[in-house]
Structures are given as C-alpha cells and as structure tokens.
C-alpha cells in the first residue's frame, strides 16, 4: 500500500472526495481511502444509470463521458444532490455535446423526470404526499406519490394533459401536493440547487 500524504484517518477526512471523481484521483489506487471514495462514487453512478439506463446509449457502456463531467459541473455549482439529481443531469446534458440526441427522443426526459419524482417520493420526509414535475421541453408532466398503504410502494404517474399547464419559466418546475389528490396548480417553483 502506498504511503498517503493526505489525511485519511476517518471518513470525515474524505468527505469532499466522496462526491468528486477529480479529488478521488489524488489518492493512490492501492490505498483503502481510494477504495472508500470509489465505493461512494459508485453509488452516485448506479443511482443515475441503474434507474435511467437509456442514458448509457448516449454515453457508451461505462457512462463516464456523462458521469465525470457532470459530477465536476455539479461540484462547481454545489448541487445539493437531493431528489432533483436527475433533473440536473438533464440540464447538463442539454448544454453538452449530447444535446441533439437527447432532444431527439422523449424517452430520456420521461425516464429522468420519473426518476426524480420517485426519488422525492422515497426520500422526502416532509408532510406533502405528492410532487409534480414539469419541463419546458414537454407538455407531459410526472407525479410522484409517496407510499400510502402498507401493501404498496411509491407510485409514479406520467400525465399527458388535455389542456396543457403553462410551461415552467426554467427548464424544470415543480410543485408539491398536500393530499393524495392532483387538484391544484399553485404555479411552478424553480429547482433549488
């Protein structure tokens, strides 16, 4: 094992690197700290590509031509990596060389919006029951519902409204639902970073 000049006594010494492929590269590959960081980065990778495998068609099978530059961009923007993780990937892709292929097929956007709605439904601990996500690139929207019965999990709905809602002012907008009814449109909120 190579001697390491960077502190690595505890997880805490590695926190910034746990979400940064560039910082990871500063650790020697045969050191436990590198493996620890690699484990963390793999979870970000799998959270993206296991849930939205279509994206691998754009990037190639290892996903790295999306993953590495996206994570670097996310680091600069200090993205919170909350439920909106996937939506920010779309925002980045829209500015990337993948843009034309991304916009040519609606399946990427549907997968991304569904993934973010599901992540909210699984991880949010506020009192709201549902989350609606809309996108300026589509009139369809996606609703994520939290688990409402002991027998079922969260549910995701893709809705193609007969009367489209106004487009969100940014690429994405969202609003939350205080009950299990989709009966309000309080206007779109912009994504927080």
């Amino acid at each position, binding site marked *: 094992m190579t001697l390491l000049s960077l502190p690595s006594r*505890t*997880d805490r010494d590695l926190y910034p690197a*746990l979400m940064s492929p560039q910082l990871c590269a500063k650790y020697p590959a045969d050191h436990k700290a590198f*493996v620890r960081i690699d484990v963390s980065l*793999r979870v970000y990778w799998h959270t993206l590509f296991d849930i939205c495998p279509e994206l691998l068609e754009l990037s190639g099978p290892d996903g790295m031509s999306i993953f590495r530059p996206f994570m670097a961009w996310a680091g600069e923007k200090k993205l*919170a990596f909350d439920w909106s993780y996937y939506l920010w990937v779309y925002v980045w892709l829209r500015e990337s060389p993948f843009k034309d292929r991304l916009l040519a097929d609606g399946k990427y956007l549907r997968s991304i919006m569904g993934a973010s709605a599901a992540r909210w439904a699984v991880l949010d*601990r506020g009192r709201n029951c549902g989350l609606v996500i809309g996108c300026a690139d589509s009139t369809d929207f996606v609703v994520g519902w939290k688990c*409402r*019965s002991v027998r079922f*999990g969260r549910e995701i709905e893709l809705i193609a409204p007969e009367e489209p809602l106004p487009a969100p002012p940014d690429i994405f907008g969202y609003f939350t639902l205080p009950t299990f009814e989709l009966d309000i449109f309080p206007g779109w909120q912009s994504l927080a970073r």
Partner: protein
Amino acid sequence: MRLGFNFTLGDTYDMVQRLIAERHIDYCEFLIDNFFCVEPDELAKAFDCPIGLHIMYSKFLEADRPTLVDFAARLRDYIDALNPIYVSDHILHFTHEERAFFHLGEVDYSREYEFVRDKVLEWQELVGQRIHFENYLSIMDGGVEAPAFFERLMKETGAGVLFDASNAVCSNRNCGTPFEAWRNVIASARHFHVAGYRNSLIEPFISLDTHAEALAPDTLAFLEDFRSVFDKPGATMTYERDDQIEFDDVVADLKLLRNLFGESEEKRHDLAISA
C-alpha cells in the same frame, strides 16, 4: 432471543406475513419514516406481531429544530399507535456542506463526541423517549474508536445501542476493531441487527453492508462466541435483507439464528401453555 425481519416497503408484505404465520420471526421492524403517509392505525393492524421502529432519515445531527419537532410529532403518532418494542435511529452524516452523500458518512468519534451527545439528548427529549442508536460500519481506521464512543454515549445520555453484529464484523475486517472491544456495548444492548455483507469490487477489499446475501461464516462465528452476551430477556435480533429477497434464503438464515439462540423465551412460554 426474539427474531425479526426488516420491513422497508410494501413489496415484501406477503413474505413477512408468511414469516410470521410460519413462526420464523417473532416480531417485525418497520423502517418507520418510509410510512409517514400511511395511517398509524393501518400500520398497527398490518402484522399480527410485536413491532420495532427503525428511523432512517430523521437526520437529527443536521436537521434544524422545527424540522425535528415536526418529525418527532409524526413519529410520536406511530409510537402511540404501535407501542413498539424499541425505537432506533442512526448516528450518521447525510450531507457535507449541504450536499447529500449517497453512501452515508461516518462521524469522527473523537472529534464529534460532544456534538453528537448534545444532539442525542435533544432528539430523545423531542421524541419523548429513549432511542437506540445503531453502530455504523467503519471503513477508515478512526472506526476503532466506535466502541468507546457508544459506551460513553449510553452512560451520558441514557440512550441505548442497537448493535448491528454484521456491521461490527465489517469494521473488524476493514479497520481491525476487535470484537472484544464491543463486549460492554453488546452486554448492555437488547436490540440487534444482523445481515449479509460483501466485498468492494476493487482491492484492497473493504467489506460493505449490502444486506443482499446470506450470513457470512465470520458473522455466525462472532454470534456464537458472544452468544451469552447477546442473549438476554427481552432481546431482539432483526435479520435485515434489502436486496435479493428470496423467501427460502431468508428462512435458511433465520433457521441458523434460531439454532444458535434457541427458541425465544416468549415462544417457549407459549409452547408450555399450549402443551
């Protein structure tokens, strides 16, 4: 030792019913904050067995007070409706500089002790009862400080430890924390977890609590060596499985645990009455 199974989402509902009906388990552990939109009464009627409540995302080290007050109020409704055997939570960092970890961060046991102790006191006061905090799987060498940290925390806050035996096995493999160092913690703990783990994909290998495979031989050996320290009146051990959940595989592991610990006291009592 009473044996239980972790119930995290609806997919395993029928399987848990069968585990209860066939008496492979004696209680069920809800990952309770996954069910905050399900009526407490519905949860109370879901399974005909005692219940433990395990909290995943209170984030009590990081959340602001109004958020914690609201979380505690909702949790309280479930505690009142379900009268759980125990309530447990995690001492972990979920974010760094407000950016979320997807693989959670261990606390620094020496530098953050006072901070954690004060938060634990505040959190128990808000929830209105004793909470059992789970030991995390350590990877880096600072993990050897975990046993002393938990001992001191119990003494100074009245909190309990939900001792995860396979996390201790992983810590032993990853950073050499001796099993013997946990003896006092295990002796004072009444609630336990156990699960499978696997190695990282790259070397030098580290062991990770994947909850997706069978119990490892070294986990079973650890339980066997410390059997009398684990087992005590009222003790519970939850078998955690979050992936690759096959009924027969789960039952095979539960049977190993049953053989190791024998029938639970409560069940022996039951049998005596019906005999």
